[in-house]
């Protein structure tokens, strides 16, 4: 599925590609893998022979860990070259599904500093691997033109100062897009805070800004807390309404009725200690919004759509709006 609604945006070619290309078509499928029976010393030689700096450890077709040159160096320093690779490898491996969009990989590789992502099918079997290199090569091929890293970065770091230039006329919407990382509590809420400020600068009525703020913050926290891969928030400001959608390719939700019950939460204890996980998030969103729709394919994705309608006078008169836009673009 394609996250967000792209129809009303001016999108660059690269952006179009990263949102319409699936990971399986950009991955390298001839993956060099490490067998769990290998020792670190064998891994070292194997990596050197194959000129690679890291590889997934695979048992019965499934990725059980990942080992990198750093791990090799560490084992050398600690005199553990005889240890089995399974003792040294990182077991908390981030993988990406074959039919995920490239945008997801760009986010993980670019922002989180992962240098390689194993690609798996829905049974968790290894199909290939994507690295920044394979990704850029395939995008280049598809675009058939020179590719600059800066250009790609522009796509997912949407700066508040840009948004004002993107309003082309009264009836096309303005779209803000944010990626939210799972478990990243240092940045959790940042997107919501930016969204709130953008709406304030657009002179949306304060009551509506507040309601949107509450809903989008609860939704953002759900991406942080309940997904294992983060997700995306898309805010579309129209003349008559704000549409918000969050999409993630996380665990999904098996029983939609149950999670909508006020008080129901699967948040673990440590999350509750932070003050989250009261099970009131979706109820709060429902309460403050005009329309809310939660859909999910368990094991694959979750999508939350929220709509806030402006009353007839909710956006200030055009002159005011223009004034605020000039202010905003300075």
């Amino acid at each position: 599925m394609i996250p967000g609604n792209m129809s009303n945006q001016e999108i660059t070619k690269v952006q179009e590609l990263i949102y319409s290309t699936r990971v399986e078509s950009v991955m390298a499928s001839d993956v060099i893998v490490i067998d769990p029976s290998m020792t670190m010393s064998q891994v070292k030689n194997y990596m050197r022979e194959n000129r690679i700096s890291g590889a997934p450890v695979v048992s019965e077709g499934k990725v059980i860990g990942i080992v990198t040159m750093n791990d090799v160096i560490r084992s050398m320093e600690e005199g553990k070259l005889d240890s089995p690779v399974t003792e040294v490898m990182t077991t908390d491996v981030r993988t990406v599904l074959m039919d995920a969009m490239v945008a997801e990989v760009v986010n993980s590789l670019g922002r989180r500093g992962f240098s390689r992502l194993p690609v798996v099918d829905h049974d968790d079997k290894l199909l290939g691997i994507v690295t920044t290199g394979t990704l850029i090569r395939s995008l280049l091929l598809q675009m058939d033109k020179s590719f600059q890293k800066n250009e790609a970065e522009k796509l997912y770091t949407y700066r508040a100062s840009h948004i004002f230039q993107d309003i082309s006329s009264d009836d096309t919407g303005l779209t803000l897009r944010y990626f939210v990382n799972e478990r990243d509590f240092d940045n959790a809420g940042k997107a919501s805070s930016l969204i709130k400020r953008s709406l304030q600068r657009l002179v949306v009525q304060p009551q509506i800004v507040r309601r949107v703020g509450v809903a989008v913050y609860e939704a953002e926290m759900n991406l942080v807390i309940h997904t294992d891969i983060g997700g995306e928030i898309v805010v579309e400001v129209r003349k008559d309404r704000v549409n918000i959608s969050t999409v993630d390719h996380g665990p999904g939700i098996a029983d939609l009725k149950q999670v909508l019950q006020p008080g129901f939460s699967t948040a673990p204890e440590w999350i509750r200690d932070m003050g989250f996980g009261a099970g009131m998030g979706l109820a709060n969103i429902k309460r403050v919004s005009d329309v809310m729709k939660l859909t999910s394919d368990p094991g694959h994705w979750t999508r939350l759509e929220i709509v806030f309608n402006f009353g007839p006078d909710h956006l200030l008169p055009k002159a005011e709006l223009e004034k605020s836009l000039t202010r905003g673009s300075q």
Partner: protein
Amino acid sequence: MNIREMIDVLQGKVLVQNHDPNEELPLGGAADLMSDVLAFGSEGMALLTGLTNPQVVRTAEMAGINVIVIVRDKTPPPETLELARDSGMTLIRTGYTMYEACGRLYKAGLPGLGPVKMVNDSW
């Protein structure tokens, strides 16, 4: 009640100041659950809480709150202070417990929201 009077009543200490001490506080509220802050927090409310993580600042910001009182003399981590500074939040600390801090403020005339009813409780 203004901010200065509140600090007096709580024998509090200002950790981050972003507001004029003469600024009036329309009402107070207390919560240790972020969702409660979002559900019942209202514009201008002073929030009393036992939480000290940065999320409390973000949550308050979303709810339109700009004065936070940390109870039981807890020391917030530097990230919380930094975020409060950046986002225009005033942060105050008091040695009183949540119960007593609320009681003192209420007695001194800082009102609460009154009875709230959670609409749409079953759906």
